């Protein structure tokens, strides 16, 4: 068996120990100089897809809507409203409450980053889960069209987001929330208050189903 290298006459055992002791001291110094938080598991705020599905396609399992294809101005307003508690604070707004607590700690730069991230996702057609009377829905939609556009394309100037291409179950949930006043009733939510008034014309679940099934036809165009 060969001698350890400190026995070969070139270097003494003691010197080796001193050398390693000095080396380890340098390491300790280096670590101590670092901020402790630098050693911790890092994270960023790009966690949208956990709930909203891969590439923001929407996830029925969490009742989280499609983000892919969402207008940047609308996404920004929604995130800011959730963060400020203007949306998602009514005790009956189950899904909104979940979103509100997730948005509450977002910084302005995180919101900007999220919007650019969402912009990188390609829109894929949503599944149709609600079927109603499309022609009755078309009649009901006339009122919606004045703000959201004849083809559900949205209107930034009026602050009305696009409806076509959105998950139909999400549209139905939000229409119900507006009718009940669970969404949009915050004093600072003037557009939401407008929607509460508008949504009353749908009257009931059938009205919601019909108008959403008509919006589904716009999505297919």
């Amino acid at each position, binding site marked *: 068996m060969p001698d350890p290298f400190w026995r070969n006459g070139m270097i003494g055992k003691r010197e080796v120990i001193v050398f390693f002791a000095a080396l380890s001291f340098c390491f300790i110094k280096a670590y101590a100089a670092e901020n402790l938080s630098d050693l*911790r*598991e890092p*994270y960023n705020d790009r966690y949208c897809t956990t709930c909203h599905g*891969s590439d923001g396609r929407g*996830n*029925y*399992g*969490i009742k989280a809507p499609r983000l892919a294809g969402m207008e940047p101005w609308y996404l920004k307003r929604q995130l800011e409203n959730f963060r400020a508690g203007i949306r998602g604070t009514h005790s009956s707004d189950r899904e909104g409450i979940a979103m509100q*607590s*997730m948005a509450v700690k977002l910084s302005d730069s995180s919101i900007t980053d999220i919007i650019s991230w969402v912009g990188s996702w390609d829109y894929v057609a949503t599944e149709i889960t609600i079927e109603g009377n499309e022609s009755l829905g078309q009649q009901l939609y006339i009122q919606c069209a004045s703000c959201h556009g004849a083809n559900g394309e949205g209107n930034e100037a009026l602050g009305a987001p696009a409806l076509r291409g959105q998950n139909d179950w999400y549209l139905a949930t939000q229409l119900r929330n507006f009718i009940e006043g669970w969404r949009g009733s915050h004093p600072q939510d003037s557009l939401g208050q407008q929607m509460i008034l508008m949504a009353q014309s749908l009257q009931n679940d059938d009205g919601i189903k019909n108008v959403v099934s008509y919006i589904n036809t716009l999505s297919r165009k």
Partner: protein
Amino acid sequence: MSRLVTRRELINLLGATGGTAAVLQAGSVLGLLPATASAAALDLLALGSTNKKVAILGGGISGLTVAYELNKRGYDCTVLEASHRCGGRIFTVRHGDLIDEIGNRQYCEFDDDPHMYFNAGAARIPTSHRSLLAYCKELGVELEVFIGENNNAFLQDDALASGKPLRVNDYKTNMRGFLSEMLAKSMSEQQMDEPFTETEAENLLSVIRSFGDLSEGDLYQGSSRNGYASGGYLTHGVQKDMLAFRDLLQSSMGRIALSAYEGDYGPCLLQPVGGMDKIIAGFLSKIGGQVKYRAIVAGIQVRNDGVEIAYDQGGARHKLQADYCFNCIPTHLAVGLDHNFPIDYIKAMKYVRRGEAYKAAFQAKERFWEKEGIYGGITRMNNSSREIWYPPHGIHKDKGVVLAAYDFGGGSYFTKMVQQERVETHLQDGEKIHSNYRDMVEKPITIAWHRMNHMLGCAARWRQSFSGWTHEEEQMYNILQAPAGGRHYVIGDQMSMNSAWMESAILSAHWAMQDLDVRVRSEIAK
């Protein structure tokens, strides 16, 4: 004023149910234990020169079980784990650890000591969970006793004893005494001679008397079982005052005091020395090199000749081709992926609801509970925090980590609160038990499983009703258990009828691997 139940009515009640007589002849079946009592050895074919690639989605215990077992048989396994750690809901929180709750991220500030940890998910191992225990043995995971039931812990209910916490022992001894007295008196009636023989009746009566520590004349007159008011060592013990039966009935806590530690929750329970994630570390010591971390699955396409997985890692999209896929991603997240699952498969995935369990813990500056004679065990409260767990490990050390709340779900009460509200509630609840609680605890952590990144839920809930599974639910369960396209298996405790247990997750993996094995054997035989 509420009416007293007479002895006669009690006898009639027993007779009317027919319960006891009906099972008198059933003694022979009592020797049977539940099916999980033995750890079935996996009989899986070793592949030899055949090459099979397996994609495992999620590094929870079911996924790691598959990786470990199939790796042994020569399969080429890759585990894609979305987060920075494996284990899923087997999560031991220590100094510096990240708790990745969306909207409420925390770093744990506990002291950096081996016993200063908190099992935020799985926290106890029933000794009937033989498959899990077999892995602990095989992987060299050292185990120690976990203490659940502790007669010296407390029960607290504002409706009971003016809200003053009672020792479990005081409640239990008195309640058992009163119950036994009622039973013994009913036994002395001639009507109860049937259907027992004289010997049976005598033995039954002796069980009843000793269950409640009855004195002469079958009366409960207090007991030394809950200790003495004073003395008992160098002087005669002075018996404690009896509690009033009617007072005990002002609270429903007795249900918990007398039956919370039955079945899977009963003694003897075990835990790994140093934290539940030692089990995960055991698996990773064998197959850790096959795990990709921060690899978030984006798509699953089941083809005739394999499964194609898309995943995001390091800012890029990657593809993974496999012959088979084992998927322990929670079903409520899996439905949001780019998939081509059959419609009825998706319907079943969408049906399963997310569990809402919540836990919290404090670092205790002193082990104040030990000064009250409590070593391990659980205090039960009729308030929102529900439970306080005293660590069975680190006994007599300076500090410890105490569980401050365990809410099993239903309405996400704490989940909806911000961190400060959660912590304040636990402090207020704990103060009802230990008056110095607020001063004794620090460095809180909370874990709302409903919001934990990459999981968004605790144990899956298949049943909508407490009364049992409906036919439709069983059908959906069977559909989801069978592999999609013969190649994609859903695994995890979600794919069991007894979710929330590690044993269930392991057995779901075993079921899937046995099914795979049949398919692979027949393919190789061709």
